[in-house]
């Protein structure tokens, strides 16, 4: 290290920067309509789904989607999952990740722009803000002025509405974990468990801060996806692109008219800054691909409106690629190829994983048996010289009615199986009853008189539903000295 020299021309820049307030302006157009539709559908699902009923019979809840922690079950319409089937959740997460990658390969951060909860709620909160405090210009003006009574009232209503939405968001969240109509009644009469109120409180606060105050800061500083996305994407993916080949050199309407008259090059961009003003993250898309851009397409709508007004063709800003811009500049046909190696690969992975999950789900058994051999003692010598092995047999009944299973063994001729707490029936069968949607563990004793057996003999355990004839099997080893 050389000696510390005081910098002569060094501009002292701050190490921390304050947030620049973003006042996104209202906008109308194709992408805005798509965003409203997505917002309605996604929020509608989120707030409404807990109230959808699904009849499963008397022994199970009738809520279509329910995460039942005390009962350790997950219900999703016709699917009921047990904790040991958590791999379906793993599969679902893998599907979600690959779907995200596929979206990225097609149109970059389209997830960020339309579907991400952070975007959807922020969009809703900004709509409320425009409703109460006015559109961009009015809002900025008022915020730069003094704290008048009107300003206080408007801001107060905004925060109240925000908190209401946030509170309802938390409220809907807890409904997924308990019978929704009952919980709503209990919540209203202050009979719900404390944990429900706590979660509503937590989600109210997080929603209020993330969608109301943090907004684009979440995308810029907190979310990992923009970083991963930037590493995953390629030059063929569609992005909201300012077609600088068409827009530059930018000039005011009058000036560009003059330029054109004189046969000089003039771009279509009139530098009206509409695209910047509508941007929910405060980005100037004309600077090229930007970390802050969530690909929402609102600047496309804004610019299209301007282009229509000045009589130039729309889509100066559009979903496009830099490759196409270069192609146009070189006089070639621009094209977008959706069928590419990576889109095919992602789609194939999606299909394979989805297919496997569907297949296993469709061929899932409503009964299962597991056995665990006693570790100590591995075998017991009986007084008549027989050898006995003890097993813990776990029987799973995923049906919503009680069932009776006959337990038999195979592979050990002459041996017999007994079950503690299940005396053989008159026909000699060992029958174990398992309640609806339950697991039962029993202790099974297998006694064998065949003295010539090797130390390990495979033994099969067979379960037969005596009413329906459905079977489940497993195997273990019979051990002897």
């Amino acid at each position: 290290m050389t000696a510390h020299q005081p910098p002569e021309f060094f501009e002292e820049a701050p190490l921390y920067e304050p947030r620049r307030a973003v006042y996104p302006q209202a906008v109308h157009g194709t992408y805005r309509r798509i965003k409203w539709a997505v917002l309605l559908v996604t929020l509608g699902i989120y707030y409404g789904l807990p109230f959808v009923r699904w009849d499963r019979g008397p022994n199970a809840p009738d809520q279509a989607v329910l995460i039942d922690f005390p009962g350790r079950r997950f219900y999703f319409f016709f699917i009921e999952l047990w904790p040991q089937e958590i791999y379906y959740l793993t599969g679902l997460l893998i599907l979600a990740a690959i779907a995200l990658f596929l979206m990225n390969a097609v149109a970059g951060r389209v997830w960020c722009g339309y579907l991400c909860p952070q975007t959807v709620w922020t969009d809703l909160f900004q709509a409320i803000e425009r409703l109460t405090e006015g559109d961009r210009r009015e809002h900025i003006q008022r915020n730069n002025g003094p704290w008048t009574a009107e300003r206080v009232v408007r801001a107060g209503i905004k925060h109240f509405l925000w908190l209401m939405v946030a509170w309802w968001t938390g409220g809907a969240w807890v409904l997924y974990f308990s019978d929704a109509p009952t919980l709503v009644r209990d919540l209203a009469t202050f009979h719900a468990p404390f944990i429900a109120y706590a979660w509503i409180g937590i989600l109210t606060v997080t929603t209020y801060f993330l969608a109301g105050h943090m907004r684009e800061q979440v995308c810029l500083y907190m979310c990992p996806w923009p970083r991963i996305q930037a590493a995953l994407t390629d030059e063929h993916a569609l992005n909201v692109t300012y077609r600088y080949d068409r827009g530059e050199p930018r000039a005011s309407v009058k000036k560009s008219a003059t330029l054109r008259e004189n046969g000089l090059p003039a771009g279509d961009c009139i530098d009206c800054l509409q695209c910047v003003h509508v941007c929910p993250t405060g980005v100037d898309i004309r600077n090229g691909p930007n970390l802050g851009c969530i690909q929402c397409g609102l600047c496309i709508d804004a610019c299209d409106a301007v282009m229509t007004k000045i009589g130039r063709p729309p889509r100066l800003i559009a979903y496009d690629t830099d490759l196409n811009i270069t192609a146009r500049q070189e006089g070639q046909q621009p094209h977008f190829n959706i069928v590419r190696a990576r889109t095919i690969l992602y789609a194939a992975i999606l299909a394979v994983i989805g297919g496997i999950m569907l297949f296993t789900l469709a061929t899932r058994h409503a009964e299962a048996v597991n056995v665990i051999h006693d570790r100590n003692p591995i075998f017991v010598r009986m007084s008549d010289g027989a050898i006995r092995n003890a097993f813990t047999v776990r029987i799973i009944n995923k049906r919503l009615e009680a069932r009776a299973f006959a337990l038999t063994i195979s592979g050990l001729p002459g041996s017999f199986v007994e079950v503690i707490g299940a005396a053989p029936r008159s026909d000699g069968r060992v029958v174990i009853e398992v309640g609806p949607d339950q697991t039962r563990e029993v202790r099974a004793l297998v006694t064998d008189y065949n003295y010539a057996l090797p130390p390990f003999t495979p033994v099969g355990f067979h379960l037969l539903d005596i009413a329906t004839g459905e079977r489940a099997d497993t195997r273990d080893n019979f051990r002897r000295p």
Partner: protein
Amino acid sequence: MALDPHHDRDSVTGTATTGHVWDGIRELNTPLPRWWLWIFYATIVWSIGYWVVYPSWPLVSSFTQGVFGWHSREALVRDLAELKAVRGPMMDKLAAASLPEIMSDPMLLDFARAQGRTSFGDNCAPCHGPGAAGNKGYPNLADDDWLWGGKIEDIATTVRYGIRSGDPKTRISLMPAFGRDNMLTRPQIENVADYVRSLSGLSVNAKANLSDGKAIFQQQCATCHGDDGKGKRDLGAPDLTDAIWLYGSDRAVIIEGVWGGRGGTMPAWVGRLDDTTIKALSIYVHTLGGGQ
């Protein structure tokens, strides 16, 4: 590190630099958001709150207690009390139920076995082994051979009062030291040992004097072990005709037993374990496989 006074802005990105240069590489100043800094300060404040409300700083012979008065031991005591309260109804049901009732109620049976297994691990496993497989001199409780009886009541009595335990109601009997106390001579003991081995079909030397052994057995041993050698459970005298040998079936081991006598002990658990626990323990042992 050197400070480069002439490059305060990066020409490519237009970003300000911190003025720091390492081997010609300049550090850009990409400022963190200010709220990030606030969160950092907030966590510091939060940690100070922890010191105030929870036990934290060590003192010379104590520590700061915190205004919440939280104590890990108290939390444990509270948890245990909660657990006991949760188990209470099942414990009462177990105390009141008879064995057939327990056997026909899967829930109660599971509960009893779980309670019994825990208690077995705490109290019985040191001698009988974690899975009750026993050891030389300590019976295997999973087989169907019982010294003092394998009915649930017999097992409960044995657990309650022990064997040669010193408790007034203990199970007690005596296998005399025939050799050491000069009741039988060495050749007589060898003959009776050969005879005992022949009872369960174990091989004996062709030259063994089984008739002498049998005569001595009838005279000295049959009182407790029975004329047929099948033992007597009210006396804790083992069946000598079966395949199970508490100390081993070698000729030398049998001779050693007849010479010096046998008398294993088991403590009485009454007073140390409550009645319901003893019941659970008995059910656990009974359902290991050998219960009668």
